[in-house]
């Protein structure tokens, strides 16, 4: 029995992960907070580390809703080596899994080691060692969370991703708008664009290297693409009228946008290489908020051609336009799940605007949220959650809800207005 499998220490350069053990395990994925898995993240042994890596892992897993982490004061012991774990103690503490680790200074860098154990049989499920500069320790912690999540749930974690969102603060008559990018837990928030005129509609490129958004910096709307690594910005659409609602094609070569240059708002395809625009929808009503299906074949959009805003679908190459939502007085701002099986949207039936998820095949819509003013839903890159903006009283915040509606979490709390969250696709 592999009770105490030793770490194999691999030499590492910069920050990299060295796999040590590939124990197999099948996990039954259960939904809902009431069945969250008990797991103990024992505080990592560390000397003068600038970040408490284990507490970041703990809060990542706890926040996901799939895990119930054991607060350190309730732990029977604080082992930091495999030999020091007494599994019967952890069984008595009703834990399914225990994670131990160490953060060791190493010539200006830090070496982080961790192991994940199955408490029932004492087997090691994961064991990794990596080194990182001090400012990379938070990223290391999120990667550890991702690895534990994937090992135990069989689904990619989303802790290493980033989110983009817009904030607005008001100072007297002036407003200050910021396009922010932060870690998925809200840490490391940075403004990548700032303007006294509105910023809107951030959309990640499929490779997560660029963000397209709408800026009113010239007092009229234009669509900007900005490369995150360099800050380089390009104005790709500044026609008379609306330039809005950018949506990347799955191959990253085109944007679907809303333009009103020819009269009323229609969906256009903008080729980012040639900058040619071609008109896709030709209805006299409002057509806006395009969303590309992950296979690139179809574009779903909002139209009020039937009187009220509803979702319609059209082949991305042009063709027959079909209405796809039939329940609710208002369905708008569609966004596909990564597997293309679901569409999330703003859904209203009466006066409350909530987040809905539609099964693309059955067209059945489930309402996931209960707010009066929920908006801007988009899927997490693993498809497990929908991120959206909500409001309670005068405070706007970002929330995530599992697509079965059972788990809900508030992601970012900010006293300024915060809205239009978008989860990076990787």
């Amino acid at each position, binding site marked *: 029995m592999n009770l105490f499998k030793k770490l194999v220490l691999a030499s590492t350069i*910069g*920050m*990299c992960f060295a*796999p040590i053990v*590939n124990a*197999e395990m099948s996990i039954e994925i259960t939904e809902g907070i009431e069945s969250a898995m008990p797991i103990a993240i024992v505080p990592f042994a560390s000397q003068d580390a600038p970040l408490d890596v284990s507490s970041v892992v703990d809060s990542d897993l706890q926040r996901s809703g799939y895990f119930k982490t054991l607060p350190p004061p309730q732990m029977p012991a604080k082992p930091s080596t495999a030999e020091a774990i007494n599994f019967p103690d952890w069984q008595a503490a009703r834990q399914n899994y225990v994670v131990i680790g160490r953060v060791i200074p190493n010539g200006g860098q830090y070496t982080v080691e961790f192991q994940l154990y199955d408490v029932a049989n004492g087997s090691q499920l994961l064991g990794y060692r990596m080194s*990182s500069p001090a*400012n*990379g320790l938070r*990223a*290391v912690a999120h*990667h550890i969370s991702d690895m534990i999540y994937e090992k135990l749930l069989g689904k990619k974690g989303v802790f*290493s991703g980033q989110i983009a969102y817009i904030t607005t603060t008001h100072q007297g*008559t*002036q*407003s200050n708008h910021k396009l922010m*990018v932060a870690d998925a837990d809200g840490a490391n928030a940075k*403004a990548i*664009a*700032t303007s*006294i*005129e509105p910023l*809107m*509609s951030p959309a990640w490129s499929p490779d997560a290297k660029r963000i397209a958004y709408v*800026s*009113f*910096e*010239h*007092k*009229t*709307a234009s669509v900007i693409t900005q490369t*995150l*690594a*360099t800050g*380089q*910005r*390009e*104005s790709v659409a500044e026609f008379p*009228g*609306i330039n*809005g609602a950018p949506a990347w094609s799955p191959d990253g070569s085109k944007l679907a946008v*809303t333009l*009103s240059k020819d009269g009323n*708002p229609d969906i256009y395809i903008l080729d980012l290489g040639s900058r040619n625009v071609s008109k896709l929808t030709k209805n006299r009503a409002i057509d*806006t*908020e395009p969303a590309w299906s992950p296979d690139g074949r179809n574009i779903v959009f*909002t139209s009020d051609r039937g009187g009220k*805003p509803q979702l319609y679908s059209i082949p991305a190459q042009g063709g027959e336009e079909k209405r796809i939502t039939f329940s609710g007085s*208002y369905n*708008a*701002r569609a966004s596909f799940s990564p597997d293309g099986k679901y569409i999330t949207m*703003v859904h209203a039936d009466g006066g409350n*605007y909530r987040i809905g998820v539609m099964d693309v095949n059955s067209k059945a819509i489930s309402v996931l949220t209960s707010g009066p*003013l929920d*908006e*801007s839903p988009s899927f997490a890159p693993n498809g497990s959650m929908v991120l959206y903006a909500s409001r309670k*009283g*005068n405070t706007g915040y970002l929330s995530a809800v599992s697509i079965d509606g059972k788990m809900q979490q508030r992601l970012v709390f900010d006293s300024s207005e915060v*809205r239009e969250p978008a989860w990076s696709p*990787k």
Partner: protein
Amino acid sequence: MKLTKTLAIVAMISALTLAGCSSDDEKDASLTDGSLNGASGMNDASVNGLGDGSGMNGSGMGGGGRYGNGKYGAKGANGLPPEFSDPNNPLSKRTIYFMLDSSQVQQDFVSVISAHARYLLANPSQHIVLEGNADERGSREYNIALAEQRSKTVAGMLKAQGVSESQLGIVSYGEEKPVAMGHDESSWELNRRVELAY
């Protein structure tokens, strides 16, 4: 095979993290620059003010100070004649309000629009911008489209009375520029509006 897969994931994680670390400084640089205008690839010099607000003021707007006047009246700074600040003159009203999810002009505002049409006809060099706005309910880009329809409805009424298209500009801000910050009907009704910005 399992090992290969794991290694691939490991390689990807490393690459992502390295990219993340190395890009932080560059992102910071573009921000502390304060303007983003240093970034290469900008083919439009007027993006300059982004970040600190400088360069935004007076950029091509002639009169300047068109915000903060709005429907609240006090004039003078932008050189408009006195009838614009006389509360008994319809020209003092420069905001048209709308019903929920509607771009139809209500009867109350027809005379206001007519007064502005007459003024614009008499002053053919005068240019105005019709700024469309919506309340916060529903999706933001749909509200941009809805608010543009409101502006276009007002523009259509002005043109029907002979105002030249060249005197009219249209911009839609959707729900992005509320004048009332509450989250109930008393605020929403003030935010569903077209402002006639002289």
